[in-house]
């Protein structure tokens, strides 16, 4: 994950849940815009609709 577009509150909240800039996660289930399930720091999180479009990520294949 490279960065996130959104208010400061949102960014901080995500960072506190382990989704800060530079964090790595695995995408488990995904829709185009819609909710998706990711695994970050051992926990599975649901990203709600619209959340996906705010995250800018770089793919790693390891």
């Amino acid at each position: 994950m490279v960065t996130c577009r959104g208010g400061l509150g949102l960014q901080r909240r995500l960072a506190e849940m382990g989704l800060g800039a530079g964090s790595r996660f695995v995408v488990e289930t995904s829709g185009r815009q819609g909710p998706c399930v990711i695994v970050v720091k051992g926990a599975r999180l649901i990203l709600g609709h619209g959340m996906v479009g705010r995250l800018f990520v770089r793919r790693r294949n390891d």
Partner: protein
Amino acid sequence: MDNGIAIQPTLSPVKPKPFRIALAGNPNAGKTTIFNALTGDRQHVGNYPGVTVEKKEGMAEFAGASFTVVDLPGTYSLSAGSLEEIVTRDFLLAEQPDVVVDIVDASNLERHLYLAVQLMELGVPLVLALNMSDVARAKGFRINHTKLAKLLGVPVVPTEGHTGRGIPELLQAVAKVCQKLDSQSLSTRQVDYGHEVEPHVEQLTAAIRRRGAGSEHARWHALQLLAGDGLTGHDDDVNREAARLRAHIERISGADIGMVLTDARYGFIAGACTEAVSQVETAETRLSRSERIDRVVLNRWLGLPIFAGLMYVLFYLTFALAAPLTKGLEAVFGQIGGFVSSWWPAGSHSLLKSLLVDGIGGGVGGVLVFLPNILLLFLAIALLEDTGYMARAVFITDRWMHKIGLHGKSFIPMLIGFGCTVPAIMATRTLETRRDRLTTILVLPLMSCGARLLIYALFIPAFFPPAWQAPVLWLLYIIGILLAVGLAKLLRVTLFAGEPVPFVMELPPYRLPTWRGLLQHMGERGWLFVRKAGTIILGFAIVLWALSVWPRADRPEQQLEHSAIGHIGKGIAPLFKPLGFDWKVSTSLLSALAAKELFVAQMGIVHSVDATQNASATLRAKLQAAYTPLQGFCIMLFCLIGMPCLATVAVTKQETGSWNWVALQWGGLTVLAWTVTTLVYQIGNLFSGRNI
């Protein structure tokens, strides 16, 4: 972990004041199971002052020492991001418990230690409970507790909440901290924020110490002020200094300071975990089981049908199982009414009898007969929550809820609303932002509840041929849903404008619920409903009763017409003329303010139907004679949309904390009902060509 020292029972003749333990932890860390294991049945539920976050307290005893245990709300951090976080933070600062037990999911250590680090920074006496150690072991984590305790500088106790393993050791560690036998609990280890930030943190800490306000938790105050987390009570100099340092740090680091601090904390945690935790390869049974289930349950094609099927079963069972219980309760209330009536001679018009039987019995009893429905619905919801399916339902519904400006978490309350609006409004507690919560609460009464079904059951057969009955009923439900959708969208562009806040939510692993947990969840909510709604309903029921028996009429069948409520009903009748309602309808509507199902009873009274005959058939015949099908439909439409019942009013006030929202909900929906019904009646009249 040194468990060798036994605590000597306190032998002092004066019973010492109990020590106070606060339980903190992330959601899904197993806080409730630990709380139950610690306190057994000695617990009670209340609310934190001023807010609707539940507060649970219980008692525990260990080796002669007694403890009061407070279960704090589940939070991910101590920043002021959510109501739960603020409540937790304020409680810790104001109440100063003797020890804080942070319950941590050992199988998800890194994430859960974030709160622990913040608690260490707050400088409260801390004991770490590594809960679900068995799960962690199964996942292959090997945690060196002694090392972790040393690295964090706080006592660490492995526990298994569901088996009770580790609980005595936890209490022992807590007792040691309380009796000041363990100096380790006040951690001396702290996160080092690096050479760019740390000197400024210390600078601000020193400034706060000098000023006095917050000096007990000076470093924590300094960090919160730097992050701009809305702490009050500091003087202008400190606030200015904090703002200056914040700007300075952000300029140097080129990043938001909140993120800088969070990164440093996670860095500290990652360091501790690398040293104290190793992972060996195992079958990872639990996670993969959850993942396997989710592959089906969250599947793009299967997810929705499975969800719909489950909801159908849930509702079917709730209503099917509740029906006999409701009948039973009605019979009991009837018996009580009969018993009370028997104190007076037959045909007596005693006011006291009328107050007890019609006022209190009719009003409160009318609401309490819904208790089986509500309890069963709560039980079903507890089942969905405790198994972990609720989070999946949020995921599945999020896509379409998003289209009306809400998100998946609003779906559950709306669903419950078809049963009863009261628990539905209470279920909105899971929504994080106030905007989402208020939007959902305001439109919830449009979900046609069980009580309104009674009205439809009377009117539809009276006015529509059998072939039309099901479609008309269906139409009413759809109208409610469509209006709710439209209203939610409208609120989203006006009062609660702005993009819906996208949410992030943890997907907990599937668990087997325990009966104890289910009954506890059901009981807590059920009791809140009975107590809060009950007291207000009782008050209003008495007021409405008084208005309906005064002034007294000579003949009982004219009582309602002669009463204050009858006069008011006639007075406001012109208002309802455009809707096609006569004074009998408007009077009945007034009486039905307390609860929708009272409308049917009141229509019976104003149309002088003797309750001893086949009441509903007689009433239907009278209705047929008095009104056209269009009027019948309009009456149902008005009951569907307008005038949310008293229980809804009470619970909306309780949950929003303000009469303004109650007024907006009640007034808004009633105006909407009036407008829609008028339109339907007037346009309908144009086509039918009949007028009265």
